[in-house]
């Protein structure tokens, strides 16, 4: 539990302090991993396999998120030549 919380926090810190969007995506992966550790820990604690099934779903959704996110990064980089999120104001009105 504490391991999961600590890993989650490292991911959140990464999202907050870094300005490179690829590192931010990796931090999101860390957060999802923390959630998975929590699910598996409870699954083994309660002798119930349902937690592992949900962890499988989390992994599937994380894979989808990574694919779409990296596609967006590529498309954005082609237009603006940057991966710094402070310069990403394309949608600002």
């Amino acid at each position, binding site marked *: 539990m504490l391991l999961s919380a600590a890993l989650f926090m490292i991911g959140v810190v990464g999202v907050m302090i870094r300005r490179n969007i690829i590192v931010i995506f990796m931090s999101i992966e860390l957060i999802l991993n923390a959630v998975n550790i929590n699910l598996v820990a409870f699954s083994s604690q309660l002798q119930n396999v349902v937690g592992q099934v949900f962890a499988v*779903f989390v992994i599937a959704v994380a894979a989808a998120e990574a694919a779409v996110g990296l596609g967006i990064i590529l498309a954005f980089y082609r237009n603006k030549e940057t991966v710094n999120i402070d310069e990403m104001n394309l949608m600002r009105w």
Partner: protein
Amino acid sequence: MGQAIAFYTLAAFILGFAVLVVSTKDTVHSVLFLVLDFLFVAALYVLLGAPFLAVIQVLVYAGGIVVLYLFVVMLVNLKRPPEAHHDPHRRTTLGFGLAIAVLLELVVIGVYQTVGPVAAAVPGPAMPVTGNTEQVGWLLYTSYLIPFEIASMLLLVAMIGAIVLAKREL
């Protein structure tokens, strides 16, 4: 006892590599630390009695997602480091402060929760099979069939979306 030692060793490695992932300046190094982190998480899954999930973790994360990240990092080769110029809007201390506050909240919640009795495991539908992989597969194809199919649809949509986004012109 040995299990506890293994758990704490793995936990230390996972946290250390996670810190390195976030703190390293070079993005490629960051991705490689991420691979190590995922591998240690897979070892932790084995320790927690989920070997099927450990294999999935190695295949999907360490094998698939990280290769995707590496490709993007190589394609987006940075001429100038994005964090080199000083930015007055960076609120590093605020970010750390918020994260520590949330961590303290979680610890308090955890301490209060562990006082109460642990709820008894809800008996699922009768499991005709034994073995971790068989159990996970059995649940996936019986109780969680609809979410399973929705997840596959989500993956299909994400694949098409990624291809459309990454194409140079439609």
